[in-house]
């Protein structure tokens, strides 16, 4: 048995061998059977035909006799025909027998029988021929005397033939039986040989099978273990992947929700931004109007301030004038006193002058007094003017500050409007990108769902693989057990 052959081939070969042996046995058996059957058939044939024919001979002879008798008795032609028929029948049979005779020992007997029969027949025919003319008892006695011995010889010949035939048959029978026994012995031997062969083959094959199976079982065991491990890993990996997928899906869903929120927020922001933009524009207009109003106020305030400053300058001017007047009054005072002094020395003519001088001095005093009042008034005026100027200046400054604040406010508004514009753009961009993101996320979600599905399937398949591996392991164990048993045996 070559090892390169597959096991089925080996088994086939072994079976073939067994089959061949069996076939041989069968062939031998069949042959033997055939022979036996043939022998037996022959025998049977002989037995049946020949013996039967031989018996027919006997029967015919008897019939002939009976017919003859009957003719004798009746002189019925019918009995004669019948007898002739029997005789022809007998002769036919004899011929048939002779034709079939294969054994040399039997032929003479048959010839003998035929002679005897001939003789007999002739005798009978004579008798019969004579019968009508003779009396029955004579015919009968003649039959008895002439034919009977012939008939007995015939019968004896037939019997002898039959006995011989029977002997032959018996011999044949014994022969065929022996042949059959031989054949059966051969068959038995062959069978035993075949069985032994089969057993050997079985053993051999079993050993081979067990070796191969053991090897294969080991392979299968290791493979199944590996498969199990791989399946386990796959299952674990699939589980992990599934859980990771679940996490990713959750995250993606959260992301989706967040992005939807962002989109919603962006929409709200965009709407708020557009509202703010319009409010900023409205605010801008309002600011412009108030700026104009403030500008008008500022101009008015500037006018007032200018007037006030003018008033202040003029009051200072007045103060300056008052200073001059005061100075003049003082000078006048001095001059008046000096004049009085002079006049006192001038005597009478100086007296009128003294009066005038006195008047002048009084005037100077009055002027000084007035200038004092004026100065205090001027001071009050200047104080009031200062206060007013400062107030108006502060008011002007406040108005300016207000105007600046308004300008700043307007700038802030413009800034807000620009920012709002950019915010709107950004919000729209955000909206767009979140929409895109949502679409992408949904696509990803789908892909992940597919992956998750695939993972589940992989998980299931790995589970199945695991199961299969377990079954495989079990089967391999069973196989191993089987093999071990055989090995043990």
């Amino acid at each position, binding site marked *: 048995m070559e090892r390169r052959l597959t096991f089925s081939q080996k088994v086939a070969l072994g079976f073939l061998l067994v089959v061949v042996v069996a076939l041989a046995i069968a062939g031998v058996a069949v042959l033997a059977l055939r022979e036996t059957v043939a022998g037996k058939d022959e025998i049977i044939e002989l037995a049946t035909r020949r013996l039967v024919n031989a018996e027919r001979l006997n029967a015919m002879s008897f019939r002939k006799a009976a017919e003859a008798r009957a003719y004798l008795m009746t002189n019925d032609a019918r009995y004669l025909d019948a007898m002739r028929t029997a005789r022809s029948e007998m002769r036919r049979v004899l011929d048939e027998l002779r034709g079939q005779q294969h054994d040399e020992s039997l032929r003479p007997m048959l010839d003998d029988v035929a002679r005897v029969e001939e003789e007999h027949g002739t005798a009978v025919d004579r008798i019969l021929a004579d019968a009508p003319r003779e009396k029955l008892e004579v015919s009968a006695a003649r039959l008895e005397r002439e034919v009977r011995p012939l008939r007995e010889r015939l019968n004896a010949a037939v019997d002898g033939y039959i006995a011989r035939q029977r002997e032959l048959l018996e011999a044949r029978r014994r022969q065929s039986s022996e042949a059959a026994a031989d054949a059966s012995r051969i068959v038995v031997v062959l069978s035993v040989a075949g069985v032994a062969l089969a057993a050997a083959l079985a053993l051999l094959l079993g050993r081979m099978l067990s070796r191969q199976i053991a090897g294969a079982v080991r392979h299968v065991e290791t493979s199944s273990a590996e498969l199990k491990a791989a399946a386990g890993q796959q299952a674990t990996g699939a589980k992990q992947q599934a859980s990771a997928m679940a996490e990713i899906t959750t995250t993606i869903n959260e992301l989706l929700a967040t992005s939807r929120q962002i989109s919603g927020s962006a929409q709200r922001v965009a709407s708020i931004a557009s509202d703010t933009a319009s409010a900023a524009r409205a605010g801008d207009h309002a600011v412009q109007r108030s700026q104009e109003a403030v500008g008008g106020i500022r101009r008015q305030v500037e006018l007032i301030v200018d007037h006030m400053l003018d008033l202040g300058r003029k009051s200072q*001017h007045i103060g*300056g*004038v008052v*200073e*001059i007047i005061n*100075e*003049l009054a003082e*000078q006048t005072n*001095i001059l008046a006193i000096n004049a009085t002094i002079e006049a006192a020395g001038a005597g009478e003519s100086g007296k009128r002058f003294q009066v005038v001088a006195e008047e002048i001095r009084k005037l100077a005093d009055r002027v000084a007094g007035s200038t004092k009042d004026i100065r205090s008034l001027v001071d009050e005026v200047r104080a009031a003017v200062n206060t007013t100027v400062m107030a108006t200046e502060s008011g002007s400054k406040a108005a300016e500050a207000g105007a600046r604040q308004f300008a700043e406010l307007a700038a802030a508004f413009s800034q807000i409007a620009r920012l709002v514009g950019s915010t709107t753009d950004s919000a729209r961009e955000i909206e767009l990108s979140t929409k895109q993101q949502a679409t992408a996320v949904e696509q990803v979600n789908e892909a992940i769902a597919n992956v998750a599905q695939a993972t589940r399937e992989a998980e299931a398949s790995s589970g199945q693989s695991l199961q299969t591996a377990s079954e495989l392991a079990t089967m391999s164990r069973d196989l191993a057990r089987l093999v071990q048993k055989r090995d043990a045996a």
Partner: protein
Amino acid sequence: MLEGTVEALRAAFDAAFAAPPAGARRDLVPLLVIRAGGEAIAVRVLETAGLLPARLIVPAPSRRPEVLGVCGHRGAVLPVFSLARLLGVADGGEPPRWMLLAGREEERVALAFDVLDGHVLVAPSALQRAAGQGPGHLAEIAELGGAGRPVVSIPSVLRAITEHRRGE
């Protein structure tokens, strides 16, 4: 401008006491430098009877356009003439601020003018007789500060007033 003025006045006044007494030049002519109706003129002080700030001038009906009205002075009612109109120039729109008293006690009149520029003493050489009778009672030209200022002759003005009165 005014700030310097006070100091200048003070300094000038005080310096006058420090300086040796100047010999009284008896020939110096006192002039009043005034303005009437925008015309810059001068008047000899000694031709006047006095100088007053213009008090309340009560308008009085008169066929003469130079008459502004009457005013009270030391218990007397004096007629007030517009010096500018007497000189033949248009009045300033403002009411006059000063009045010169002129004429004898019985025929005292008040001549109203707008601005009193100052009181100066000039040497007689600074006064020049105008060639011929100048228009509007201007007999002389006074050289003041490098510029010539016509000097109104008060007697001439008084004569014009009196003649006109006589003509009524």
